[in-house]
């Protein structure tokens, strides 16, 4: 897992964290009780998404705010616990980044921000990034079905996975629109469809990447409804990945008990070969 490891905080980091805390408290003060509001109902939550302009500008403020509700609660004590969690998770890459846990501007976050910039800001950027990946996946399965390389149970599985990706495209498009954004265009794609074995291998690769891509963005999503939608898609991509891994004689949990996230740049680099012109 690529999470912050904080075995020992340098003094400078504590100072940064203290400054951040002040910033957080100031930010909370100016926004009153907004952060602590309890959603009265599911319907009200839906209204928030549906009418971001007319009724409730909370979404826009969330999108514009560098400080999410979620981050607000991260304080010094929990950073140590998170460190314990990461250690317990057996972090085996020697990434000893010592950025504060309440600090959203680590090097990773920065590079992810620039990779995502082409898709828009904040949640809209993440949604359009996810939409682009879903378009690629849906196009891939559609081509595989047309290729005639599969029949029987495998064809049914591929069809059903393709239908899932198409449903994700629809949901993400609708969500982007509801947030007042413009859905990313469907990219032109090309896939090497030589034989059944290599295609199913590619499907497994793409699904594992897709699951890692969603995992890489989960903690960056500001709006709870968008997060709920992303989570409900993320675990479906994971199911696809595990099934395809099993079919291709790979471990269904290739990264062990804790799945690894992938940042946007890594993901976009890997799907680049499938983008035509």
């Amino acid at each position, binding site marked *: 897992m690529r999470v912050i490891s904080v075995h020992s905080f340098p003094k400078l980091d504590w100072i940064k964290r203290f400054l951040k805390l002040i910033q957080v408290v100031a930010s909370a003060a100016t926004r009153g009780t907004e952060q602590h509001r309890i959603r009265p109902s599911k319907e009200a939550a839906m209204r928030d998404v549906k009418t971001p302009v007319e009724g409730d500008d909370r979404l826009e403020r969330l999108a514009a705010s560098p400080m999410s509700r979620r981050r607000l609660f991260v304080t010094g004590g929990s950073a140590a616990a998170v460190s314990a969690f990461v250690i317990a998770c057996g972090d085996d890459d020697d990434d000893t980044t010592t950025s504060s*846990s309440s600090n959203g501007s680590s090097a990773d976050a920065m590079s992810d921000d620039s990779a995502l910039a082409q898709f828009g800001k904040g949640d809209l950027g993440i949604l359009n990034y996810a939409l682009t990946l879903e378009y690629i996946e849906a196009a891939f399965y559609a081509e595989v079905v047309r290729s005639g390389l599969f029949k029987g149970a495998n064809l049914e*599985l591929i069809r059903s996975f393709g239908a899932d990706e198409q449903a994700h495209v629809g949901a993400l498009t609708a969500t982007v629109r509801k947030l007042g954004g413009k859905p990313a265009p469907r990219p032109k794609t090309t896939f090497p469809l030589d034989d059944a074995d290599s295609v199913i291998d590619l499907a497994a690769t793409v699904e594992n990447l897709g699951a890692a891509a969603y995992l890489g963005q989960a903690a960056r999503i500001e709006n709870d409804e968008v997060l709920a*939608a992303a989570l409900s898609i993320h*675990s479906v991509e994971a199911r696809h990945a595990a099934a395809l891994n099993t079919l291709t004689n790979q471990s269904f949990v290739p990264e062990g008990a804790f799945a690894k996230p992938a940042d946007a740049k890594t993901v976009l680099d890997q799907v680049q070969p499938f983008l035509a012109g």
Partner: protein
Amino acid sequence: MPQHNQAAPELAAVEFEPLSRGALIAKGVLGAAALYGAAAAGPLVRRAFAQSGSGDIEILNFALTLEYLESAFYDRAIDQVDLSMEVRDFATTIRDDEDAHVTALSETIKGLGGKPVAAPKVEFPFSDEAAFLELAQTLEDTGVSAYNGAGPAIESKELLATAGSIVQVEARHAARVRLARNQPPAPDAFDRALGTKAVLKAVQPFVKS
């Protein structure tokens, strides 16, 4: 809601339960108490919400309870049921994953100054491989929905990221078990989110104390 359904029929299929910390506590403790009576809320509920700490600790303890349950479930199957080599193999992998989740969640709760819940005493109604796999599918699918439901209520983004890395593994377990039963590995395009009350209700039959 109808308008929402028109705007996004696919999303409407997802059961959103945006749980705030307050709502989570209310749903878990007051909800169960109101529904079943305080005394009938059950040892699992009392145990899962024994802590009076912050929201994240409660969510972590809730997750820990589920992971303990899953770990014990696979232990029992591996120790006492005649399993095919294939099933024994992936059941062992899954059991080890659940154990790792137990350790990670316990350590995190301690690190946050909370007290990890004790492992619940459990009992599972299966004696053969088919019954074991059927129940495994239910437990794993429920686990996915439990994490997905709790996700938006998690305040710390680091904890959210870790919960995400766990739920992805639970979803992979669910798919593997489903394949072994010739069930669709991903039955819906969107996994459902379940609130704590629904999750506790689903697992309550297996908890003996």
